[in-house]
Each structure stands twice: as structure tokens, then as C-alpha cells.
């Protein structure tokens, strides 16, 4: 067996997007809510992920500068939370609840059906970049298990037989109530 070493010295740096000026401005808009700049980190990460689809290395460095902390402080926080990801995911992230109430009401059959329809496994993304699939702990809608969340939209009492229909619906991640754009990125166009 031969070793295949990674040439880290000459490897091209990983490409990832920078923070746009409007995004930075939006982040600065949170400064007067907290007594420290570091406390703006989690709101900022939400906004960055909304704009870029993930929190890349470059964004981590730049937000560190903006908040006057080190990039490793930022990475420390990013890596702790399961809702921030450091690499691109699908346009829509499907989160299937796996906790006790949903489990006893057949969450595994819903998850299997998602895997079948999307053709991917847990924590994978479809080749066209449209969908990622994840399992999650209790989504606080146990009275309506099994639950699936697609981006912002909660799907309740999901019957495995309906999973295909849900996943084929273009509007399956849209809320039908007025939204607040406070935590959105600066580039989001749809209201």
C-alpha cells in the first residue's frame, strides 16, 4: 500500500466567500444590543449562513476582525453548534426528528422514505445541491410527530406515504406568516 500525502504547502487555499459590505453593516447594526462585540457572534453567524449557505473559513476570519476576537474564537463557537456548518449544504436542509415521541410514532420510516426519495443518507447532500438530509433531536412539536423540518417550515404528522409529495413541493420551506428579516443575511431577496 502506498502513502498518498497531502501537499499542504502547495495546496490551493480553500475558496470561500467574503462578507459583503451590506452584510457587515447588518452585523454592526447588532452592536448596540449587547455590551460586548463578541456577543454579536451568534447573530452574525446566522446572517452569514443565510447569505452564503454556510460559514466558510474566510467568513470566520472576517467576522473575527469585525468583532475584535480571534478566528479561533469564532471557530470554537461555530464548531460547537449543530446548526452552523463550515461547508456548503443543499439549498434546503431537511431535518428529521429522531427523539422519543417521533421515534415511537414511526420517525424511522419517515427518515427511510426521505433517504429513498432523495437518494442520499444522513448528513449527505444531493448531487444537484438541492437537498441535504440531517437527523435532529426533539423539535418541540411532539404532539404532532413524526416531524420534519425543511429550512424554516415544520411539517407535522408526516406519513411516510406523503414524503415524496412534500419533497417535490417547491414551497415546502416557505412560511405562511409574516417574517422578520432581522436575522436574515443581507442578500436575501424573498420576503
Amino acid at each position, binding site marked *: 500500500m502506498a502513502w498518498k500525502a497531502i501537499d499542504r504547502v502547495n495546496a490551493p487555499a480553500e475558496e470561500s466567500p467574503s462578507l459583503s459590505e451590506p452584510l457587515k453593516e447588518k452585523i454592526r447594526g447588532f452592536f448596540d444590543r449587547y455590551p460586548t462585540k463578541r456577543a454579536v457572534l451568534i447573530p452574525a453567524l446566522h446572517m452569514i449562513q443565510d447569505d452564503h449557505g454556510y460559514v466558510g473559513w474566510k467568513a470566520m476570519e472576517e467576522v473575527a476582525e469585525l468583532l475584535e476576537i480571534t478566528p479561533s474564537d469564532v471557530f470554537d463557537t461555530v464548531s460547537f*453548534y449543530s446548526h452552523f456548518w463550515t461547508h456548503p449544504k443543499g439549498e434546503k436542509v431537511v431535518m428529521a426528528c429522531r427523539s422519543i415521541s417521533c421515534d415511537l410514532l414511526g420517525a424511522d420510516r419517515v427518515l427511510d422514505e426521505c433517504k429513498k426519495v432523495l437518494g442520499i443518507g444522513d448528513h449527505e447532500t444531493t448531487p444537484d445541491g438541492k437537498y441535504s438530509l440531517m437527523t435532529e433531536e426533539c423539535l418541540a412539536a*411532539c*404532539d404532532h410527530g413524526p416531524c420534519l423540518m425543511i429550512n424554516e417550515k415544520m411539517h407535522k404528522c408526516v406519513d411516510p406515504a406523503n414524503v415524496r409529495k412534500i419533497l417535490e413541493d417547491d414551497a415546502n420551506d416557505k412560511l405562511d406568516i409574516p417574517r422578520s428579516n432581522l436575522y436574515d443575511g443581507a442578500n436575501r431577496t424573498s420576503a
Partner: protein
Amino acid sequence: MSEYEKVLLKNVGKPNSRQLATYVEGGGYSGAKRALEHTPDDVIDVVKRANLRGRGGAGFPAGVKWTFLPKDREVTYLCVNADESEPPTFSNRVLMEEDPHQLLEGILIAGYATQATVAYLYMRAEFTEQYHIMQKAIDEAYEAGYFGKNILNSGYSLECYIHRGAGAYVCGEETGLIESLEGKRGWPRIKPPFPAIQGAFGKPTVVNNVETLANLPHIVNRGADWFLGIGPEGSSGPKLFCISGAVKKPGCYEGAMDFSVRELIESDRFGGGMRDGLKVKAVMPGGISMGILTADELDMKMDFSDPAKYGLLGLGTASAIVIDDRTDIRQVLRNVARFFAHESCGQCTQCREGTSWMYKMTNRVERGLGRMQDIELLGEIPAKMGMMPGLSICGLSDGAAFAISTIVEKFRSELEDYVRNENDDAVRIALEIAN
């Protein structure tokens, strides 16, 4: 079970219950107005006399907690705990979705009583719809002068901001929440110092649950005696109960703390009985962290004191999962063990290692590869991991311990039978995995 007139959920189902106008029409914000006409100490006093015990899980009296704040403080923060991640709990969700202004009025009253300058509403990331609803309500409240500078000409000022979490159960623990608010990983802090002395940003801080605060407008308006008149001594006041699983009417209900788990399942006011002719096998009545009851223990009262008599950690979030007789207890055991292994924050060795070790064993047991020794260990490890023996930093480890040890203790013979009878299959499965 006594007659009960809804308090916390009285606006649920009303058209436009989320709107400020509807809330005010029904007498909303009159409690806050009344509070602002009195001194902060008067407000603390009535809450103390009402003995409003925290609804977030620990049951600590809210009024007493507020008196721990140092007298000479300049800045105080109020953190509202809407992290609601304990399976299978969803009562805070209902309160925020259906009646956001009731919570905001509670925040204003608690803020005034503690002389807080900023209130942070810490909402878990998965509360998406609820976040948009709450933000809209906060905007409305600011516009009407219930937040901001010099509220209703009282001279008191309070800002109210939503801080969204990012997916971590442990951020529901009050000091984990504070760390997360500060932009850090949600690692709970060693106590003391308690948040009341040194909390968010090093300043005196009060952390209260959503449901606890939703009670305040009613206490201020109707008085401590009214509150004490509901339910048994030591467990007074309106309370929300969640029920899910194998019942006809899963949902969030309101009542006094004066009925049993059996009534919660059977009564038409609550669960409406078992569905499809199923029978109860077990119930976890206070969220999974509190532990499990067998079908013979359904007389347990849903109040603050009875759960301990049944070997449970407490009333917890008063949210019951009803497990039916077709369910394999190994599935429940494994699911619960996985939850804690996934959510342990990893600071304390025995919590980090203990929860994953237990998950490995329960996984083995479920797949028919269990050993008698696993069951022994599943009984033994929990006794050596929690805050109770003084070993860990936060209560997550105690939750894991109670959940797993009560299941193993109370369903031991069933688990042992599986292990005894499935050993032949185990070899086959082991071979299948190996190939």
C-alpha cells in the same frame, strides 16, 4: 381533579390571538401597568407570597431567586429561557405561538421587579415560526410603548431582544445559556458564583422560563391568594402539561397540579385515553430526564412533590410521553441514551464518557448483542456521574442518570429476558456485521 378555569391558555384559539389589539381588548398589559404603579419590591413580594415555582424544570421559587440579586447593582440582565429542548416538551412553543403578548407582559413585570435593563429572549434555533411571531409582537409592543425608554411614563426603561440559539440542548441550562448569549460555546459554568451574582457579561442576571413569566400578569392582577388557591400546597398556580405518544388527543393542556398521571392519560380534558385499544406500558411524565413510571405507578400526582416518591428526579417539564404495550423497552432505552450521548457538552469526563458508553451498550442490547454485564453496568454508571454525587458541572448528567437507571431498574427482568434469549441470534448478527 377540580373544576378549572383556563388562565395561561385562555386566549388560545381566539381569532388574532397574536395581535396586540386582541390582547389589550382582553385586559392585556393591565398587570404590567399595575406593577409599574408599585415599587419593584412590592412586585417581588407578591410573587414571593404566591410561591411561584419555576416551570423550567427545577421548581425554584421565582420571587426568592430575585432576592438573591445584590442590592447595590447597577446593571441587571434578564434572560428568558425559551430553549425548550427536553423531549417531549412543547408548552413554551404553544405560549409563544398563540399568545406572545402574555409572555412579553410577563417579561416587562419581571424586568421591572428585578430592575433589569435588557431582557434577552433566548430561543432555540428550531423555533422559526415562533421567532417571527415573537419578533412581530416585540415590534408592536415597542411601538405601543411597553418597551424602550420611560415605559408608560414610569421612568423605568427596558430593552427586549431575541437571541437565537443554534442547536444545543445544553444551552437550556442557565449558565450554558449565558455563555451562548456571550457568543461562546454553550458550556455550563461551575457554580458558585450563581447568575444572580455574576451572570451574563459578569453582571447580576436572572434566568427564568417562559411559562414562569407568563404567570406574572395574572399574579399581579389577581393577587397571591388567588394563586395559592389553585392546586395543592407547594404546587400552586396554573400549570401547563404536555402529553404525546399513544393517546387519542396528544397536546398541551392546562390545569391545577391536582391530578394523577392516569387522569392525564384517561381524562377527556387531557389525553382522552389510549388510542387503538392499546394499553399503557410505561410513561415518562416529566420529560425524559426525570425517569420512567411503569403501568402500576400511574397514581403519581403531577405536582412538585409526588414524583420523588416514585424514584423520579422531579416534575421536570410536566411533559409526558406515553409508551404503549407493543413497544420494545429496548427501543426506548436506546433512544434516550442516544439523546444524552449526543447532547452532553463534553466538559465533565464522566458525563461525556458515561453517556456514550451507555449508548453503546443500549445499542448492543437493542440489536440482540447484549450481555448481562451491560445491564449491570447500565445500573451502575448512572450512580457515578451526576451533580448529585457532586461530580459534574450541570444537571444534564443527572437527567441522563435518572432516565437510564429508572428504565433499567423498573424493566430489568424484560431486559434480562432479551439478553438471555437472544444470544444465539447475536452470533448470527455479529457474523452478518463482520461480513
